[in-house]
């Protein structure tokens, strides 16, 4: 019998000798051969780099190579006709120094806007699949506006040592999400970070996140964007205004270099991966806020960076006259349900899940992803379905911002395919109104507390479809929610016209900062009430960065353009508002210690074992008698029962009383089951340290039959 030839000990060397990696042509002095159509983008292959790019309407394509940072190209290599298959040009270029090469494409084709074509051969175009992008390597470094190729594709190596890391796959119902902006989180001088404002600095703050108790960090956009996009100056102050938040993608596959301490070395990929690995080591997942609804190219007056010059008619939704539909409010709308564009979205998310070990994605203005190429909402959007059933994304969290700027509002009706969760805007609005003591909110609050079965129960979606939040990057911070009646966006330079006008906020009697101890005490109490409602509600709670320590934006509810203390987290607040931090930490611990707060099915589903009490019962100041009337501002509920978790059965008993009335009230208490006694875990009517207690340290309630609750306060009792 013939012995099999042993495999080479050096697989790369073995591949080098393969005939399909031998150059067959010499073009512009470079050894090349026809490339592989897939994958798109630039891929390292033995001895060279495979470049592949799609355009269904271009008539020719040229690869443009640069030495890193050089203004003029090193070489331009036109793709021979024989290197195109279908609508894809591909070429392997050998002998490139992958560390020092930047690349782009020139596309030739018609400039005929009415027909949707905007080809311009004078432009060098960024590869939509570029895995790293040079040109904005250092945050805030003013660009050369005359740079002919401002955003440059770079090659990356996929040799990161992940050790044994993989996505954590924490069940949805276990998550406590913390929404943060990479730069804002550590940029403030008080952060003490060695590399402030960077991915590296996030690693330094992991102990803080762990102490708080969150287990999921949701990062505002990290795909490469241009902070100088449409940069302008506040006419009143002269302050430079940025595209600070980054909801305007330049490259979907590339991490923002300016957020990396190593961006100037081109090592943002490694730094980002290290951040993810360290977060994972500490039990914290990473969700990315992704923006597929539009790109940084804007409308017909915007720059030609990539898609516009590669295949405008494919990538964007266009009116019959060739203008851009604007369902994003940002000038253009990505044509997400075109099959080509669907694939780039899918490829992108797969790449971040597989290559960066990302645990989930939050989709900005996700309702757009359900529109057809002409903007009409689809009953069965193929992109959303594809993402829901994709094998690589099979364990990823998929979270929709279920509305768009074109008026499509799908909270509760977003096509979920059993996978998608939603930012629950109804939770935000109803909780704000209840906390403000609006009339007629008790019924709505009861729904929100149960994970919004009115929104998600009708088609079998559980409470984990609901990402509960009261504040997010968009709008007031939690502190400002109770410090301002109106928005104060003057610093944005738009005459305070921008930003949401209906905030459902209340300034507690004084607009803005005050030294009045009574007002400040009330604000603290309302913040604690909000955190309590958030953490005891079924569904997935999300906390905005800094809300746990009273971060203020001075009443600015649309701080998208400020690279300043308006956005930066002041770490001095940890001490200044240590009372709030302690309270938030103990509430998160309370949630972690009580499985009944983290159900993955609506509690009314009846899957429990029979017990002495219903799974959930509703109460008022008189036990078992909830007041559902229009004028009521009081509700209490008891969660009780024997519940089956994934791997165990457990008993739990919690009573929560919410008093949004402006007078103190005495609540008669239902009896806990068996010989349990009520213990006080939370009472926002008290000042620290009696406002909350660590698990196991809750004092027993002296009077087991009634409970005095202060005005505008809430309490959580546990039966044990």
């Amino acid at each position, binding site marked *: 019998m013939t012995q099999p030839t042993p495999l080479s000990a050096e697989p790369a060397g073995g591949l080098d000798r393969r005939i399909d990696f031998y150059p067959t042509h010499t073009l512009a002095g470079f050894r090349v051969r026809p490339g592989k159509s897939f994958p798109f983008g630039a891929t390292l292959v033995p001895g060279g780099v495979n470049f592949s790019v799609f355009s269904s309407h271009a008539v020719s394509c040229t690869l443009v190579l640069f030495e890193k940072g050089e203004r003029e190209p090193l070489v331009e290599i036109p793709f021979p006709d024989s290197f195109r298959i279908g609508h894809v040009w591909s070429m392997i270029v050998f002998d490139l*120094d992958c*560390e*020092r090469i930047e690349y782009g494409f020139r596309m030739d084709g018609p400039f005929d806007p009415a027909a949707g074509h905007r080809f311009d051969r004078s432009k060098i175009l960024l590869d939509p699949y570029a895995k790293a992008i040079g040109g904005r390597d250092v945050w805030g470094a003013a660009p050369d506006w005359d740079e002919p190729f401002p955003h440059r594709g770079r090659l990356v*190596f996929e*040799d*990161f*040592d992940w*050790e044994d890391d993989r996505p954590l796959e924490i069940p949805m119902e276990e998550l406590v999400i913390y929404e943060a902006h990479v730069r804002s989180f550590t940029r403030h001088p008080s952060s003490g970070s*060695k*590399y402030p404002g*960077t991915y*590296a600095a996030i*690693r330094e703050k992991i102990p803080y996140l762990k102490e708080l108790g969150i287990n999921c960090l949701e990062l505002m956009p990290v795909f490469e964007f241009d902070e100088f996009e449409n940069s302008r100056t506040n006419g009143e102050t002269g302050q430079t205004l940025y595209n600070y938040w980054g909801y305007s993608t330049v490259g979907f596959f590339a991490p923002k270099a300016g957020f*990396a*301490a*190593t961006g100037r*070395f*081109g*090592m943002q990929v*490694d*730094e980002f991966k*290290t*951040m993810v*690995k*360290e977060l994972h080591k500490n039990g914290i997942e990473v969700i990315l806020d992704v923006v597929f609804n539009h790109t940084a190219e804007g409308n017909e007056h915007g720059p030609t960076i990539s898609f516009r010059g590669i295949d405008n008619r494919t990538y964007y939704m266009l009116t019959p006259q060739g203008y851009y539909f604007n369902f994003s409010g940002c000038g253009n709308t990505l044509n997400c349900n075109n099959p080509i564009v669907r694939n780039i979205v899918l490829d992108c998310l797969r790449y971040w899940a597989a290559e960066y070990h990302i645990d989930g994605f939050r989709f900005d203005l996700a309702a757009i992803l359900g529109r057809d190429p002409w903007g009409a909402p689809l009953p069965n959007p193929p992109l959303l379905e594809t993402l829901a059933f994709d094998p690589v994304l099979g364990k990823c969290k998929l979270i929709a911002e279920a509305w768009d700027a074109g008026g499509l509002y799908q909270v509760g009706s977003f096509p979920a395919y059993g996978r998608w969760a939603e930012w629950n805007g109804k939770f935000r609005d109803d909780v704000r109104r209840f906390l403000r003591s609006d009339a007629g909110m008790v019924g709505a609050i009861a729904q929100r507390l149960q994970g919004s079965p009115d929104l998600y129960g009708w088609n079998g979606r559980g409470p984990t479809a609901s990402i509960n939040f009261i504040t997010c990057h968009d709008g007031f911070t939690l502190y400002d929610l109770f410090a301002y009646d109106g928005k104060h966006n003057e610093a944005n330079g738009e005459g305070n016209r921008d930003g949401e006008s209906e905030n459902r906020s209340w300034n507690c009697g004084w607009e803005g900062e005050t030294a009045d101890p009574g007002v400040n005490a009330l604000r603290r109490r309302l913040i604690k009430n909000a955190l309590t409602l958030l953490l005891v509600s079924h569904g997935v709670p999300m906390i905005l960065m800094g809300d746990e320590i009273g971060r203020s934006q001075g009443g600015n509810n649309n701080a998208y353009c400020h690279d300043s203390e308006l956005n930066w987290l002041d770490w001095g607040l940890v001490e200044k508002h240590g009372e709030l931090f302690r309270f938030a930490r103990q509430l998160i611990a309370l949630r972690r210690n009580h499985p009944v707060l983290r159900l993955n099915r609506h509690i009314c589903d009846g899957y429990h074992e029979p017990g002495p009490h219903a799974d959930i019962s509703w109460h008022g100041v008189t036990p078992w008698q909830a007041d559902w009337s229009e004028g009521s501002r009081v509700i209490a509920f008891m969660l009780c029962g024997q519940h089956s978790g994934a791997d165990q059965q457990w008993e739990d008993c919690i009573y929560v009383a919410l008093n949004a009335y402006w007078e103190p009230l005495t609540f008669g208490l239902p009896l806990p089951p068996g010989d349990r006694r009520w213990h006080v875990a939370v009472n926002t009517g008290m000042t620290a340290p009696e406002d909350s207690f660590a698990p196991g340290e809750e004092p027993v309630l002296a009077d087991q039959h009634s409970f005095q609750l202060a005005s505008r306060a809430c309490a959580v009792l546990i039966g044990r």
Partner: protein
Amino acid sequence: MAFQSTMEVVNGVANITLKGELDASVAGIFKETIEQAAAQNAQRLVLNMHELEFLASAGLRVLIFAKQKMGSGVPIYVIGSQGPVLSTLEMSGFHQSVYIQDSYQEG
């Protein structure tokens, strides 16, 4: 200073001394040194960087290569790194994958 990479293996410990500027143009030399250490079945890798003045991403890539080439059972000691070299290791997070020390002490 021009880049230099020297190595000696004593009792299973590969001592590699790096001098000068380790950038893309010379990273291949360093990579060959690592391969030689692996070929000699080194059980420890000690990288003396006292006189290394600059570490580019290409050099860091070789460190990553070393980590994977030698295997998780072979500890890597980075000795005497300072200034921008140490910063690069810290910013990228690689300092958590190796032992950073002033002088070689078995970890």
